[in-house]
């Protein structure tokens, strides 16, 4: 659906990544493909380094590191928080939710609205949409905390050359509040559940509960041994989904907002891999320089955290100093995709922190 919001803006953003960097070159031996062939993907896809959590780290550990830092450093006051929107597809437990864990750890008051969203790569856009809706109803001065985090590395086979090198674990804390001076926001979120199987983790839910059987690695013939507990992606279908569906939505959202493509300072787009972003940029006819595409090669694809990470890695200083006209777009499991045009900048804080996770 399309929506138009006024008087709302992002005022702070912190991204969290595990400090430990895993190098693709060191993992080449895990895959069944000849190293030369695998290494070719380094430049094309952006397989260089990525950040994955330790076995003992849970999603909420990453997210709480971000949120507690923001609270402890006085960047956010507990009493100002009217709502907490938590987004993950890799929760610590089926119950309690990530939002509940954060609410408890942060000792937020009982009248804080907590909403948990299950969204993958479009999680940031869905989270912002919820935040904008909530801000219309929250008491004056109350802010929304959007907390995103995923540890998808735990659901990807280490022998899956098509997915593992691309995966990154990360979390983000984003503060959204009412501000009468803020520019207009145009958002359009779309879904096509008929293509839901293009990105799938078959086991681990009520359909096929995890068992020793679902944990067995099997090579289905594509040279990438994985189990039913692991993420499986129909790469061709996902690629054609992004190339066919994202550009027209972005164009349409720009039209709705009455903004020309060349007036956009930054295209902040979900970071699936370098190749797809290069092609998307060619398809949109925008310069490569206006679309950061280096998150995958440095951190891996962190699902819903990708846009916050693209901002904090590339534009942290700029986004504190001034405002920019931005176009955000994300696409992923669902299949779900969306676009937003909004001003971003003059943030109270914008940074990237890492910890021993």
């Amino acid at each position, binding site marked *: 659906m399309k929506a138009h919001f006024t008087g709302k803006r992002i005022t702070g953003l912190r991204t969290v990544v595990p400090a430990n960097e895993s190098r693709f070159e060191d993992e080449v031996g895990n895959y069944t493909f*000849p190293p*030369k*062939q695998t290494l*070719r*993907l380094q*430049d*094309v*896809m952006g397989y260089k380094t990525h950040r994955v959590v330790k076995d003992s780290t849970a999603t909420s550990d990453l997210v709480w590191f971000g949120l507690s830092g923001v609270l402890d450093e006085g960047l956010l006051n507990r009493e100002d928080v009217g709502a907490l929107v938590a987004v993950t597809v890799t929760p610590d437990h089926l119950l309690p939710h990530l939002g509940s864990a954060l609410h408890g750890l942060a000792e937020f008051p009982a009248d804080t609205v907590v909403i948990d969203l299950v969204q993958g790569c479009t999680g940031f856009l869905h989270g912002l949409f919820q935040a904008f809706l909530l801000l219309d109803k929250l008491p004056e001065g109350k802010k929304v905390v959007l907390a995103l985090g995923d540890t998808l590395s735990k659901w990807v086979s280490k022998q899956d*050359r*098509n997915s593992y090198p691309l995966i990154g674990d990360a979390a983000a804390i984003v503060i959204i509040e009412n501000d009468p001076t803020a520019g207009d926001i145009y958002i359009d979120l779309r879904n096509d559940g008929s293509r839901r199987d293009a990105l799938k983790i078959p086991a681990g839910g009520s359909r096929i509960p995890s068992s020793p059987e679902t944990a067995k690695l099997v090579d289905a*013939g*594509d*040279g990438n041994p994985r189990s039913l507990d692991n993420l499986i992606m*129909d*790469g*061709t279908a996902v*690629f*054609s989904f992004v*190339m*066919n569906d994202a550009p027209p939505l972005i164009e349409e959202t720009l039209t709705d907002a009455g903004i020309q493509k060349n007036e956009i300072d930054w295209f902040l787009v979900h970071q699936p891999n370098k*190749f797809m972003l290069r*092609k*998307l940029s*060619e*398809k949109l006819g925008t310069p490569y320089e206006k679309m950061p595409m280096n998150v995958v090669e440095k951190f891996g694809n962190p699902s819903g955290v990708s846009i916050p990470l693209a901002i904090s890695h590339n534009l942290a200083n700029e986004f504190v100093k001034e405002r920019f006209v931005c176009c955000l777009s994300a696409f992923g499991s669902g299949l779900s995709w969306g676009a937003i045009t909004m001003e971003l900048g003059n943030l109270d804080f914008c940074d990237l922190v890492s910890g021993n996770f």
Partner: protein
Amino acid sequence: MSSTLNGVLEAVDRIRRTRGHVTNLFITTDQLESLLDRPGVQVSMDDSLLVICTRDSEVWRGYFYARNLLDLSQLACRLPDPVMPLVVDIIGRTPNVNLTSGYLANHGFDYQSTFVRLSARPYRVIRSTDVKGVRKIRTDELPAVLDIITNEFNHLDAHIPGKDELAEAMHRGEVFGAYGAESLSGVAYFQSIGPRNVVLRYFVVKPEERGKGIGNRILNYVQQTHDPETQTTLWVSTSNPTLSLYRRMGFVSDGLEDHILVKAGGTKMENSISSFLIELRPETDFSASENFIQDGLLDSFDLVSLVSMLEEQFSVFIDALEIVPENFATVDAIASLVSRSVSSA
């Protein structure tokens, strides 16, 4: 005059007025008109470059007028059908011929061979005056003559004469043959281009009959039919061992060279594609498959690698919406994808 001819003449005139223009088209207006009349001829022209391509069996032959060397880089882009190789002859004297051919060699063309022009007035046949078994060839022997010539030359190196051209030459009595016990063992076509002036266009002895003096017998015979003052001219490849033989017969170079360059057509593209496939999946026999995707030989990551290889090798942008399985089903499908992709050069 046809409108094409007029347009071409105007383009030639415009380009010739620029200093340092380059061309490989040294012909009269009448010859130009007959070139443009050939079936399948393709003309492309603008202010900086005129390209005429004629079809010669399996290759295109390119003739050009360019304002300067830099404009020549566009030559290959004017190729009418990328599936066939484009052959250009760069004729001239050093250093000009080297500059032009060197430039093309750096812009997608490969050196095929170099010919030099030799002439003698008259030539001296060494060791022999024998003319046994040599005579003018009758017109009904055309198929045998064509057979010998086409077996010897390929389309990249030589302008192989068409049936009609040979038939007319035979009718004029310019084609001579040497006969062994049963059949024709060698032929020579001496094209008369003026009084006491002939060009030895084709001169072939069947491979299995070589070393028996058959070539000498033909040359002896022809010399006896010519005026002693006749000048004979010929083009010979610098890699042809008979070059030294011609020199011993009194032929000397007049300084003209013909550098033959070829821009590979589909054959080379398809070869590159096949080698990329082997690099991606060394253990796979692609030749046994009629659909690489349906047979599971390539996955989406192979397509990504392949797209980057193709974009790099052929300097193209492959449109994202074209990256669909059916465009990677066969080598031909991939070649066709590359051919219709936009140049990134």
